[in-house]
């Protein structure tokens, strides 16, 4: 499975520009760290771990719904 992979390997500048742009523009980034802290500190407490994870899923669902709405709106405007 590892043979013959062709992927884009970013330069150091491009890679750093990417994660810096994320941290500048993505306002929901802190939620990941809060959830990670909860999971790490409560490893083995599956109820708390699941609850922490769920916060990210709700966020993802909201985001995808917003993105879908924006995309359909753009398509509607441009057609």
């Amino acid at each position, binding site marked *: *499975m*590892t043979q013959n992979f062709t992927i884009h390997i970013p330069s150091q500048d491009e890679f750093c520009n990417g994660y810096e742009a994320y941290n500048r523009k993505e306002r929901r980034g802190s939620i990941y760290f809060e959830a990670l802290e909860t999971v790490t500190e409560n490893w083995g407490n599956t109820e708390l771990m699941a609850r922490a994870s769920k916060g990210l899923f709700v966020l993802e669902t909201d985001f995808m719904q917003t993105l879908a709405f924006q995309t359909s709106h753009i398509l509607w405007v441009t057609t």
Partner: protein
Amino acid sequence: MGDNIEELSAYKDKHILSLSETDHDRISHLFQKLLQALKRERDGALSPVSVTKAFGLLTPNFLPIWDSTIAYRYDCMYFSDMAESPYLRFCHKMKLLSERVQHHVPHPDDRALLKRIDEYNYAKYTMGWI
């Protein structure tokens, strides 16, 4: 999650650079279990994205995060109920990327290398910020 805590614990401190084909069966099994466990109650929809978001919390150094755009851009497109095989391919591609960019992040860093890679992928492919 309770049913899979042992397997998750085995991967908790593993690093993507140690990924090998011997991990495939366990990753596929875990992926399927979480896919079913995270099924949306309202309509039963399956979300391979949610599975990897969970991996990002539970095995942050070992199993990478994707979304449909990122998967597509790495030629690992999936269907909701047939995502394990593309995901395994994606894991190996992220291993290769990890090898190449591991020196491009702060040392020490406050987050996992795979989190940095997800931030880069999201900015470049999902959002087109760079």
